């Protein structure tokens, strides 16, 4: 049994524009999601300069999203989200060992209590722009998903193989690197590994979604990759159990050290900050994330 833990996350994004920017329209996936195992205790979101319009909406995946507009010319944009969450209470992680059914069962559409096809799962079974269905990815996944093998065992195997086969290499990829390139270069960051795993699962007919959030790592060591930065991992649906989250970057199940922000089909659905503005010249972006473990 895992004890619930409390975290405080401070996520700051700064843009500096060479020329003044105006007519800025932004969308931020920076509100930690309420889930059965994660409770949002407080959330503070501030934007400088002051937006002229600001609201919260729910996106198609049920994530809460900040939207804001800035009209006045500005040369810098600071977006700060500070949240406190409790993770672990209400989680059913103990029962996960029960997911030892044949993985092929997860390829069938699931029905909701009303007898309808569960569209939330079907939505994550088809390829998306950043995590497409690919023959190469199916080939990579096939090694782990042998005939008659258990679902959890196969999933953990794929999770571990990605960790072994791919080198974590900051700067080797960009936010737009396609999965097919990654399969050749074998280096990338957490976002690439998540896209690869999603692509691999979808290519053999399993539903998978992209989860964006943070990972807590103690101290300053590099023992766990992704600490003090945005992190990304994968969730796949186990029939009869629900969505199970895997972190291929660290070869483990994503449980109480993981703070979930939002999920979608791939990065494009849940990018922390996304938008357009009017302006000229270049822009500099800096992001800082601090995750603190709180007592109690």
């Amino acid at each position: 049994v895992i004890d619930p833990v409390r975290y405080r996350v401070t996520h700051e994004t700064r843009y500096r524009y060479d020329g003044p920017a105006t007519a800025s329209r932004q969308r931020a996936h920076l509100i930690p999601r309420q889930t059965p195992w994660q409770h949002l205790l407080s959330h503070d979101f501030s934007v400088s300069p002051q937006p002229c319009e600001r609201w919260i909406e729910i996106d198609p995946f049920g994530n809460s999203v900040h939207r804001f507009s800035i009209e006045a010319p500005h040369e810098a944009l600071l977006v700060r989200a500070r949240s406190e969450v409790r993770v672990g209470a209400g989680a059913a992680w103990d029962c996960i060992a029960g997911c030892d059914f044949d993985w092929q069962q997860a390829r069938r559409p699931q029905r909701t209590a009303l007898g309808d096809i569960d569209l939330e799962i079907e939505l994550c079974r088809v390829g998306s722009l950043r995590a497409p269905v690919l023959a190469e990815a199916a080939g990579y996944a096939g090694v782990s998903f042998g005939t008659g093998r258990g679902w959890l065992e196969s999933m953990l195997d794929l999770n571990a193989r990605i960790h072994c086969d791919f080198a974590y290499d900051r700067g080797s990829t960009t936010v737009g690197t396609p999965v097919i390139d990654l399969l050749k270069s074998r280096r990338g960051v957490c976002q690439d590994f998540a896209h690869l795993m999603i692509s691999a699962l979808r290519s053999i007919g399993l539903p998978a979604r992209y989860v964006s959030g943070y990972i807590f790592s103690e101290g300053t060591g590099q023992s766990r990759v992704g600490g003090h930065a945005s992190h990304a991992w994968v969730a796949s649906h186990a029939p009869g159990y629900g969505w199970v989250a895997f972190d291929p970057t660290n070869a483990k199940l994503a449980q109480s050290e993981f703070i979930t922000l939002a999920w979608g089909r791939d990065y494009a659905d849940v990018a922390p900050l996304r938008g357009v503005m009017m302006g000229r010249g270049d822009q500099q972006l800096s992001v800082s994330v601090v995750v603190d473990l709180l007592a109690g």
Partner: protein
Amino acid sequence: VKSIASDPPEPFDPGPISDPVEDWSVIEAGIVQRARLLDRILDDLYGAQTLLKSGALPPALFFGNSGYLLPLQGGRVPGGTRLHCYAADLVRRADGSWRVRADWTQAPPGLGRALAGRPRAQPARTTASRSLTIDSTTDAVSALKALLGLDRAEGDGPPLCVVLSPGPSTEAFSEHALLARLLECPLVEGRDLTVFEGRVWLKALGGFRRVHAIVRQMDDVCCDPISLRSDSLQGVAGLVDCSRRGTVLIANALGSGCLESGAIMPFLPDLARRMLGEDLILHAHESATDLAAIRVFALATPDGYRILPGVTAVGRPFMDPRDDASRSDALPLPARVAEDLFWFGRYLERCVSSARLLRAAVQSGATRCDDLVDAFAHRPLAELARCIQLIESDEPLDRLAWMRASRDTGRAFGLMAQLQALDALAERMRERSPLVVPWEVNTLPCHSPPPEGASSSRLEGWLREVIAALSERFECAPDDSAFGVAARIVRLGRSIERMGFQSLALQVALRADARGRDEWLLQLYASADDPEPARWPPPMMGDPRHGRSIDPNHPARLHVLALQVRADVEWLFRNDVPHARSSALAALQALDCDNARPGASADEPVLMDAIGRLRTGVFDLSDLLHQWLFRPARAPRLNRTPAL
């Protein structure tokens, strides 16, 4: 998913219809049924999703289709119709039956041509049954306008509808322009529109105008860089929100393109029975053989879908936009187009000023010894030419310098490069905004550079031609028609540029030796063909000491220009929001011309100071116009996304 930019239908020979009466009634019934069915399917896909939940349609068919827009699910559409215009490509099989080869549910290509085309022979009218075909193209245009709500006047005037196009890079751009023309709507691009307060606005000259309806000629996924594909810069940030809230009517509704991938066709017979309780009339053409097709269009009307008479879509050649300029009067002018017009005016005047300066320099050199560079006139002219970067600061001032300044296209501010920039801008305006471009832009002559090694007199002759060809344009008085507004903006650009150049010339003149000053200033302004240059005093003083007659209202004089600029700016801001008006008026204060009036003090330091302020003021005014009046709603620009 098929691109909407594929070919519009070519003029069609109605030959394949053997028995027009019988065939046509089948076609019209089939198309109307299909449009109804597809609209119902869209309604379900973006509403209750029962077809997907029950498995009647495989979810992967839509979730895997980029045209199915998730953020639109659960939203409402004004009027409840999603499929406003529909078209199907029909082929006739050997057995005489008609089959559907393609459905067009997003922005049926060729709609403009179908609406503009001559009505085909009206076979259905000979039958006793009530026809499902609209009588004439005129009626069809009215029906489309009614569909867009353009026939209803609201409290704040008639509703504004725009045709949203990706721009001239699309093959179908002429089609979009035609549609805009038929509907008498502005043709806009994504950056002309903006969203705030949950509504769509057109950044028009004179302020933001609420947009009530959008005829969308853009792919679904490109319509909103925030909620849809983020790498598309064509769309309008926030359009999806407005669509969901129902504050703007979009025809066809966002997301309707997901039915264009022929994947749904095999399911239609079942769905027709299930949703309409009818048998499907027109079946899919499954064979790969490509038969000639006709495209039949349908429009949603209050009585249900009706077929357009323009199956034989014969294209109509583009008319001279001035033919019916008056009809465009009430149309707001997109700010982006206004900006092009303004810069056209400035470029035009810059070319004229440079050419005048070069001509004066060539003349002053020609009347003296060719290498006498320090002649009274030559030196200030050279300084002036350096100030406007016509010649470079370290360039030796030999007798070829003026020739290089005239013909060298490599230097950014050389005359030939400026003429080319002017041409390029005119070309872009003709291409992008064919409906509002004034005649003068359309007929701009193209100049070839002066021959290399030409004599001074050849060069002078060439310069005179350039000046003559450019300076008579836009001297006509602007009226309030759309072309008049365009002409006024060009004139404003010209006046501002001219004031900038003349004040610079006066500053140089005041610093230079007084001897011969009036002569070369005269040369800068006098037209080569002017019979009596003496009637054109230098714009600064017109000092009666010179004993020349003075025309105080000559258009080249600074204070006359300043008055005209003031009038034009006040006119342009007349309907704008108060704080824009007040900043415009403040900027105009700087154009205080009392010291530049004829008969005013000839005290040179005072004059120098006044001219300096005028010069700063006029460029500040230009910046203000640029920032406020001409700013498009949004320039396409993406945030850089944080990498992990």
